[in-house]
């Protein structure tokens, strides 16, 4: 009975998935990967002692010794940024994992079922979306113990409705399709219908949402850092920027302090945007 391949092998599936991506996706991926590699491989070439206060001369421009120069506190900026990159990317990914999981689950459930619980969650989603998140974030973050994990969790609490609502909309249309009726006739349970019939249909959609959640979370985290909220003991790109602005780096013409982190953030946002754009295009076909 091996005569016909009934399903494609996992390897074939992965190949076909990568074939469906366009150039936009790969440009975006390249931008993000460059930063990941920068943060990951850079760890092997740095010395943590270089970021202690006054480790080197203050505010010196890029040189052979300090490729990215030093800040006003005498820290090596290259070392600082290498340590900061994983932290910043982490906040985005952790937030997106939590928010996408909660959002997808609640979106699927409220889209599929009808009833008071569904109405309750739906109303909660609408309220959460209407609340100006940054304002609440600032007040919560200011009295909670300051750590990047806490920031990620708080961001996730405000991010999941933005996944839940579109997922719910997708499910609302999917549940009217005849294949759902056939699954019911085949005695599939509601749980099986949600996870085996509906979820695979919206995977590209969720993937696109995940990527833009990462991007939004990083933006929000940087925003909080710039406002001076957030941990000051873990280096992050936002923190480097905040310190640069706090020290009036722009007016003191210490361009090496604030331009590299700006470029890195741009690479993250443009890269993620391109990936999400491409995934979104796939989801709509």
């Amino acid at each position, binding site marked *: 009975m091996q005569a016909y391949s009934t399903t494609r092998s996992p390897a074939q599936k992965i190949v076909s998935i990568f074939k469906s991506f366009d150039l936009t996706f790969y440009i975006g991926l390249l931008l993000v990967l460059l930063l990941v590699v920068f943060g990951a491989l850079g760890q092997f070439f740095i010395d943590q002692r270089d970021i202690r206060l006054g480790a080197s001369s203050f505010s010196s421009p890029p040189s052979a010794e300090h490729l990215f120069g030093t800040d006003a506190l005498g820290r090596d900026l290259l070392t600082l940024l290498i340590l900061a990159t994983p932290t910043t990317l982490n906040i985005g990914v952790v937030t997106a994992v939590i928010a996408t999981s909660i959002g997808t689950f609640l979106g699927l459930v409220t889209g599929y079922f009808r009833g008071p619980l569904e109405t309750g969650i739906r109303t909660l989603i609408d309220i959460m979306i209407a609340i100006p998140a940054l304002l609440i974030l600032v007040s919560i973050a200011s009295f909670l113990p300051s750590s990047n994990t806490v920031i990620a969790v708080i961001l996730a609490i405000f991010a999941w409705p933005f996944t839940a609502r579109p997922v719910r909309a997708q499910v609302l249309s999917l549940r009217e399709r005849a294949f759902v009726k056939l699954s019911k*006739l*085949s005695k599939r349970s509601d749980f099986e219908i949600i996870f085996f019939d509906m979820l695979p249909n919206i995977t590209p959609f969720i993937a696109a949402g995940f990527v833009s959640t990462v991007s939004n979370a990083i933006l929000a985290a940087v925003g909080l850092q710039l406002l001076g909220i957030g941990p000051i003991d873990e280096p992050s790109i936002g923190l480097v920027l905040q310190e640069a602005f706090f020290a009036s780096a722009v007016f003191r013409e210490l361009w090496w302090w604030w331009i590299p982190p700006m470029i890195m953030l741009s690479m993250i946002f443009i890269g993620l945007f391109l990936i999400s754009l491409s995934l979104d295009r796939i989801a709509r076909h």
Partner: protein
Amino acid sequence: MRTPANGTRNLLQSADDRDTILSLNDLHVEYASATGTIHAVRGVNLDIRRGERFGIAGESGSGKTTLVNAILRLLPETAQISAGSIHFNDIDLSRLDNRSLNFLRWSRIALIPQGSMSSLNPVMKVGHQIAEVIKTHEGKRYNKDVRDRIERILESVGLDGRVLNLYPHELSGGMKQRVCIAMAITLEPELIIADEPTSSLDVVVQRQVAKTLIDVQERLGASIILIGHDMALLAQTAHRIAIMNEGELVEIDNVREIYHRPRHRYTQMLINSLPSLEHREERDIPPVARADGGATPLLDAQAVTKVFGYKGHLFAKSTEFTALDEVSIEVTGDFPMVTTIAGESGSGKSTFANIVLGFAKPSGGAVYYRGKDIARQSRSEFAQYRREVQAIFQDPYEIFNPVYTVDSLFRVAVKKFKLARGNDETMALIEEALRVVNLSPEQVFGKYPDELSGGQRQRLMVARAYLLKPKLIVADEPVSMVDASLRLMILDLMKSLRDELGTSFVYITHDLATAYQISDQIIILNRGKIVERGTPEEVIKNPQHPYSQSLIQAIPSPNPDIKW
């Protein structure tokens, strides 16, 4: 009238008095596609006479729409006329430039496109849309004269002149179709091409619209080409019919010859597949009593009511709509039978199907399957009910989940009902079911739904029902979207399931002709209420309720001798 430029002057000259208005000579149309060239129209020769109603019949994919698009030079960019000529009077349409073509279209050749109801602009009043046609061709602004003229045109297609002040969404389907006819005849063309002009309408309205079209055509003395898949409708409306199959006209003759003495094998198949209202084949095998039958009916719907409520917002008063109103239907458990529930769109027949299948709960009354209320079943009763009550649905595309290969339709059912142990046994079961619908495993296994044809998908749906061998199948319009040959096959399969496996059917349809042929009991629904019930002979030959009478009267007979 606006004077056309020099090049188009001869287009205005009235035709000579020859008999032929349109002449196709060895016409070929080819499509370029990713997999190579598709030869959609292969050497068509055809003469349409002045004042004639000419029907072109064919199944989906036969090339009939491509043919009319070629005549009007409306082919998509991927298609081209690769050989042959199209002569309209003395003008060779295949060589005409765009400017002259634009002039000819509407003014001398008008098109009522397929699904033309949706071609009306939703944000423009009907009158303005018709005025647009007049403005482009005659240069006249929308003034009192034009307005009066449009009113007269609308009245000539059986509409109130005041319709010109309405928007398309304010009109019913039949009215919209009449507006499209009105637009087509505005400039009094010599040739009207109507591509499935009534296919989306209910049968009663279909008859009225078709009659209007014929009236208008006769009054104008125009010729008309009617494209359709419904042989009965063409038999009632056309003088001559051409049968198209795979890009070729296999037979052209007058209606009576085609119906009584079809020569080509394909035509014979089409004619034989037509369900007739004249006589009915009795069941070959007399009903055999079911071993497990008994006093309890298989399905017993008692005063089933379904009310849909809609609330606009939290504080809004909900508007209610009664889809089913105390509908009682009994399907006996003594012997397998086919119960037809017939009605037009909006009659509530699909709502009833959903309730029987357990997808919706009735607002009042109850449906009993083997004596158990299906809304109040225990776990084990529900398992048995799911195993024994299955369905065949209308849309063969929607029934497949696009992310899985089509065999998952079978695998899930086999797995959940534990019909087989191991892969080999599963495959053997599936292959047996596929054989019944004339599909080979190679054709379908590992394929995604969009890699199969509509016919193949519908056959898979029937194969699934066969695989499960249920006691009751709810067949919701199983043949309304399929071609004649496949329709015959599916109806035969339903009969053999009934006679050999003892499966009863609830056949939901708008098509009384097929219902007459395969049912043991017909129930006619109108706006959620049962208006007629009885044996096929009683209901079709001697309907009591005025609604059923009008419904049955409106069914076109494929026999041209029986006038509509």
